[in-house]
Structures are given as C-alpha cells and as structure tokens.
C-alpha cells in the first residue's frame, strides 16, 4: 500500500505517518531529508528523532537523489518529507536544480520497487496566497506537481488537520 500524508506545518502529520508506517510490513525504514542549517533545525530533527525512538526505525539520512538509494530488505519505508526534498533538489549544490520534479518522482518510484508499504509525508504550503519571488514560486509549483502526481498514483491519500486524519482517497473495499 502506498500512502501520501499531507498537512501543514505543525499539523501532526509526522506523528500520524509514523503510526501508519509502524503498522506496515517490517523492517521499518525512515528516510530523513532535512538538512540542518541551525539550532532550530537541530531541535526539530531531535524532536522527530525522539518520536521515532524505540519504534524500531532504521534511519537513513538522504538529502537528494533518492533514486540511487538501495534498501536491503523490503519492508515499510517512511519518507519524510517532500517539502524538504524539493528544497534540497531545487536549491542545494548536490540537487537536480531545474530537474527537481523528475528527480523527486524518480526517487519515489525507485523506493516503490524496494518495499511492501510506502508512506510519503508531504507539505501543504499552498494556503497563504500572496506574491512570491521567483525561487519561492518555483518551489511551490514543484511541490504541487509532485503532490498531484503522487496523489493520483497512490492508493491512499490522507490530510492531517490538528492531528486528525481526513481520508481524501482510499482503496475500494
């Protein structure tokens, strides 16, 4: 089963996605995409690390180019999150730049081949309107396109609001 978990900042999506992944096939892999830049990032990463502690996740830190990531034994993969991955692919030195969208999608498709269950966490960054500078707009559009492709492709899509899961799409019973 492939599940896309969608939500805003501090919506409870990570906690929800982890619980979902824990119910998937063992072994559990956690692909962390967040590049720490400062103390605030370190704290956020630490908070997520604590949440995963003792849940049995193998953590793989991967900031770009998921396509070449090799998973040794198929199980459940939790990829968190596309918002960071998109920023890394678009803006970091090792990133795919203009080819970010395809790099992200090819990466997710490669993971699909290497697991039984896949949970992908992605971000709602689309709700504050306004005018953006070009780089930010490119980021928003890239993430939107990736979200839309995966929501179409995956069997299940869940939006998390205030920690409450809202089923947007699920397999026919």
């Amino acid at each position: 089963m492939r599940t896309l978990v969608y939500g805003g900042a501090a919506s409870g999506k990570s906690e929800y996605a982890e619980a979902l992944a824990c119910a998937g096939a063992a072994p559990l892999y956690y692909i962390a995409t967040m590049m720490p830049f400062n103390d605030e990032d370190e704290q956020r990463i630490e908070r997520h690390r604590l949440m995963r502690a003792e849940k049995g996740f193998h953590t793989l830190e991967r900031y770009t180019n998921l396509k070449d990531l090799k998973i040794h034994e198929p199980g459940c993969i939790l990829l968190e999150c596309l918002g960071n991955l998109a920023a890394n692919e678009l803006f970091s030195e090792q990133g795919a730049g203009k080819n970010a969208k395809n790099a992200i999608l090819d990466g997710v498709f490669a993971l699909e081949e290497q697991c039984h269950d896949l949970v992908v966490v992605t971000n709602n960054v689309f709700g504050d309107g306004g005018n953006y500078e070009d780089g930010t707009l490119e980021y928003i559009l890239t993430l939107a396109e990736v979200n839309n492709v995966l929501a179409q492709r995956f069997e299940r899509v869940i939006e998390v609001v205030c920690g409450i899961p809202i089923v947007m799409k699920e397999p026919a019973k």
Partner: protein
Amino acid sequence: MVLVIGGLAAGKREYVKNTFGYSDADMADAVLDGRPVLYNLQDLTAKTDKSEEELLPLLLQKDVVICNETGNGIVPVDKAERIARELTGRLCIQLAAHAEKVVRVVCGIPQVLKES
C-alpha cells in the same frame, strides 16, 4: 470544549454564534479572560510569553476556541513568526485531542472533523 479552525475570514465566528448562541460580547479577541469564547488564538500565541503547557489548561476551560489555520504556507523568514506558528499548530493538536468537537469552517460551511 469545541475547537473551530479555518482560514482567515472563513466564517468561523458566525458559525459559533449561529450554532451555539454566543454573541460578540461573549468572545475575547486573543486575550484570556472570563469570556466563554476565545478567537484569534494565533494572535495570542504570537504575543504570549507562556509555554504550550501553561496555555493548554487555560484554553481547555473555554467553551469554544477559534483559530486561524496558519500552517499552510511557506515557512516564515522571521524566527518569531515561525515559533508562533509552531506553537499555534501544537496547541491546536492538543486542543483537538481534548475537544468533544472539532470543526473546520470552509466558505462558511462547517466540516465536522471530530465529534464524540
């Protein structure tokens, strides 16, 4: 406690007035006082010096807490805004967990996310 969330000017206060019978006089704008309804929780978190743990019990005493959805945009450049946004989201998760009812108002239409 009822938690009502939604975008800016989505019709959250109108919904609360019409559904639960409160008036403007019952509604406190981002201040904690004796009134039964608090709205603009996101403004309260932006100016408070209280922690999540300190705010939560005070908010749970309210009949209704109304909050704008603030997490659905690009990460703010300003650190204080980021911290307030994080606090708003964390509080809403806690409030939603304790609430007997959680409603998201979209274009004035209530969508019940939780009801016990």
